[in-house]
């Protein structure tokens, strides 16, 4: 890519370059680019580790050989049937959640928002739990979770609309809806006999345990559409950070852009929930970690955020599977790391005022 592109120095400035080919031009921050590359390498390394560990241990060579199609039969079976789809799913889930969080935080200009806080996860959970408890066909659960998530997102958006969207209002309404849906889930658990609620309970904590190639395909197709869309929207989001008035005075149709951002963000998290169930706190934490390292949100930092989210979930999943004798759902681990971090964030934000 770089070979064919004409590199133009943007300024005497450090690390900013413009990549041009014909009518297309992108501003590239070299520091962000190197961060992306480093994180990608780390992600690949973590993925290798994830595929090596397990009851049937493999060496690095065996993992790489299998993935590249030169492995032996035994390793091939473990990798291709079990660990490779799971690893890919985890990476894509982490990426989708992180992107969703970054989009929401940018769209309402509040660092403390994420899809799980404004009730999107709860909406999917309520739909799925209801479906499981009423003994409906299991195959429809992902679709139902997706529909639940998207309906809550639309509801929150519509209730927040008062000629324009105010970030504070959207968050408060989201938190209210989240509480309401949480109460609904609890009600269902109390209402139905314990034997029936067991399998439904498992659904309330996100896990990648049952992922297969169908999941990989679903996520890959949706991300193939949503990532370019989101990256393109980041160009507008950058200007949105300057405040509504300024953004409008430089020609950004602010409400349309915000609606698009919220739609893309909700869809990203809805796909993740449909595949794995509600995994908390990745969407909230990953963008923060990324911004702390790479600076304010741009297209480059957004891609970095995606990778940070993927890496975060990958490591959490390794811990969830192998740290204890019993394997845990990954949602438990992300909550165990994410919740204290969230408290720390709240503390820091308050301390600054």
């Amino acid at each position, binding site marked *: 890519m770089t070979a064919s592109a004409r590199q133009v120095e*943007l*300024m005497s*400035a450090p690390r900013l370059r*413009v990549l041009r080919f014909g*009518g*297309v*031009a*992108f*501003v590239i921050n070299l520091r962000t680019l190197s961060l992306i590359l480093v994180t990608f390498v780390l992600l690949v390394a973590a993925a290798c580790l994830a595929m090596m560990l397990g009851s049937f241990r493999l060496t690095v060579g065996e993992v790489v050989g299998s993935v590249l199609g030169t492995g032996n039969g035994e390793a091939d079976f473990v990798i291709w049937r079990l660990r490779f789809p799971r690893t890919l799913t985890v990476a894509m889930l982490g990426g989708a959640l992180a992107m969703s969080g970054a989009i929401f935080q940018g769209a309402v200009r509040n660092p403390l928002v994420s899809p799980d806080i404004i009730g999107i996860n709860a909406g999917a959970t309520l739909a799925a739990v209801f479906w499981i408890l009423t003994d409906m066909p299991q195959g429809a659960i992902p679709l139902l979770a997706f529909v639940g998530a998207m309906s809550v997102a639309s509801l929150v958006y519509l209730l927040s609309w008062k000629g324009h969207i105010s970030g504070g209002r959207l968050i408060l309404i989201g938190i209210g809806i989240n509480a309401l849906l949480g109460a609904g889930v609890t009600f269902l658990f109390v209402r139905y006999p314990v034997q029936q609620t067991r399998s439904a309970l498992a659904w309330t904590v996100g896990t990648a345990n049952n992922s297969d190639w169908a999941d990989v395909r679903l996520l890959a197709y949706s991300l193939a559409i949503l990532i370019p869309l989101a*990256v*393109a*929207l*980041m*160009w*507008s989001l*950058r*200007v949105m*950070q*300057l*405040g509504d*008035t*300024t953004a*409008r*005075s*430089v*020609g*950004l*149709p602010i409400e349309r852009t915000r609606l698009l951002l919220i739609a893309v963000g909700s869809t990203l998290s809805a796909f993740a929930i449909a595949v794995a169930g509600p995994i908390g706190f990745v969407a909230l934490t990953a963008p923060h970690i990324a911004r702390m390292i790479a*600076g*304010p949100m741009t*297209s480059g930092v957004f891609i970095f955020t995606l990778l940070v989210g993927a890496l975060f979930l990958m490591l959490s999943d390794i811990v969830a599977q192998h740290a204890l004798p019993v394997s845990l759902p990954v949602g438990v681990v992300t909550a165990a790391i994410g919740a204290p971090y969230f408290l720390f964030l709240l503390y820091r934000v308050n301390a600054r005022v």
Partner: protein
Amino acid sequence: MTTSPQLRASNVTISYNGALDIVSDLDFDVPQGQITSIIGPNGCGKSTLLRAMSRLMKPRLGSVLLDGQAIHQHSTREVAKMLGMLSQQLELPEMVTVEDLVRRGRYPHRSMWQPPGHDDQVAVDRAMLLAGVTDLRSRSVDELSGGQRQRAWIAMVLAQDTPMLLLDEPTTYLDIAHSREVLELAKRLNREDEKTVVMVLHDLNDAVRYSDHIVVMKDGEIVERGGPQEIANAELIRNVFGVECDIVKDANGWFCIPRSKNASIRNTTGGESDAVASESLTVGYGRVPVLKSVSVTFPDGKLSAVVGPNACGKSTLVKTIARLLKSSEGSTSVHGRPIFEGSHRDFAQRVGLLSQGAAIPTDIRVQELVMSGRFPYQRWYRQWSNEDQGEVDKALQSTHTEEFRWRSVATLSGGQRQRAWLAMALAQQTPVLMLDEPTTFLDIGHQIELLDLVSEMNCRSGLTAVMVLHDLSLACRYADYMVAMKDGRVAAAGAPEQIVSESMVREVFGVDCSVVTDEQTGRPLILPLGTANSLQARPADDASSTGAARNGSVNRTLKEPVG
């Protein structure tokens, strides 16, 4: 009334989060029973000093002593009984009425279980009356205009009923009449109730006119202090604010007339046609119309100013023209094209806006901010062109922001920041630029600098600029065309020389003044009459003063509360 406490800062050094010292090794003894003004350029540490002296923050070194004891050893309640502090940029409570807000000032005088007593209500009523917000008592604070809000906060501080008042820029957002009322009030509280007053002031004329003692700060240190007439002179202003000025002293008081470096440069072209034409605009928030059938035009290639008292609708007019607000009736066109024709992007290539009190993005750098001005010319897949680069460089150059282009916007001083925002608006390369109170938070030196810049852009590239300005004299000086507004209507429009007169200022702003012609610029100068110091010090002069005699009686008394 208890006697005024003794407040003093002894060798204080103050910094935020261990960063650079804002105030360094400073001694300041508040003169008891007097009005003291602290003046100085943006970022000199004057507000920070006041915050430390009111126990809002702790100095890094040294101590603030209240009645001989370190102020942090007193409880907040004790301090609040002695010092009433009006801070700047207060957070806005939602759904709180003015009366509720003012009642909060009584907090230090009440114990937890005691219901508000008769004394409290008397103090609250009196405070509202003094600050002129009685009529607004049941209005919600967030519905008020900037000026009304500021007076509501002042009322809250007055309800605290303290022997000492610390006021941080009490006249920000206030128009001439209101700021004068507030200053007269301070004077009255000082003279009649023997309150000690310390104010951070923006306006040099106000500081000289209303204080007994002036403290001049620069770069975190006190560079001069003393009686206003003794210390305030052109040399001091040059050294501290970096601006040349003429001082006019007459029976009416003391006036500082700042000079720009290029006052003689005037744009002689343009004005043949109208750049902006609005016809019978009616705009309102909710049901109350702010603009009532306003028809106004602004000439092409000229500098125009919109002036008027608080809440007259001047910002609303500018926002409507900039397409931020929709008018319920009427229409606006820019260069003959209706503003709502075309996309947002297209409009952003025609009209730019420098908005008031724009949000400060935390970690964005100056150049990145200026680059955002190029947004209407870009697409996500075509993010940067040589033309973009050229315009950004040009904008940075002409606003003299090049040297800190890689600094974060949050680290800039008020003046630098405003220049950075201007650079962004200039990079947008629009033929028409609207500026909503671009000078509000700037000291006199930076105000001149910014207005010089705009007038330079007007001369050099024929930029049509429409500015909402606070300071009438500055507006007269810089604008080729002026629109004076009152109560949502246009009161007068035309060249400043033609429309500005003593009767017009009285009618629109409600203050008496004398209007003279500035020989250097040929523009009108507005000299307010009836300044407290000159009246107090030389009552004989007042009667014989030609200005006062010519203009009838001097507005000496505080006006009745206005809505």
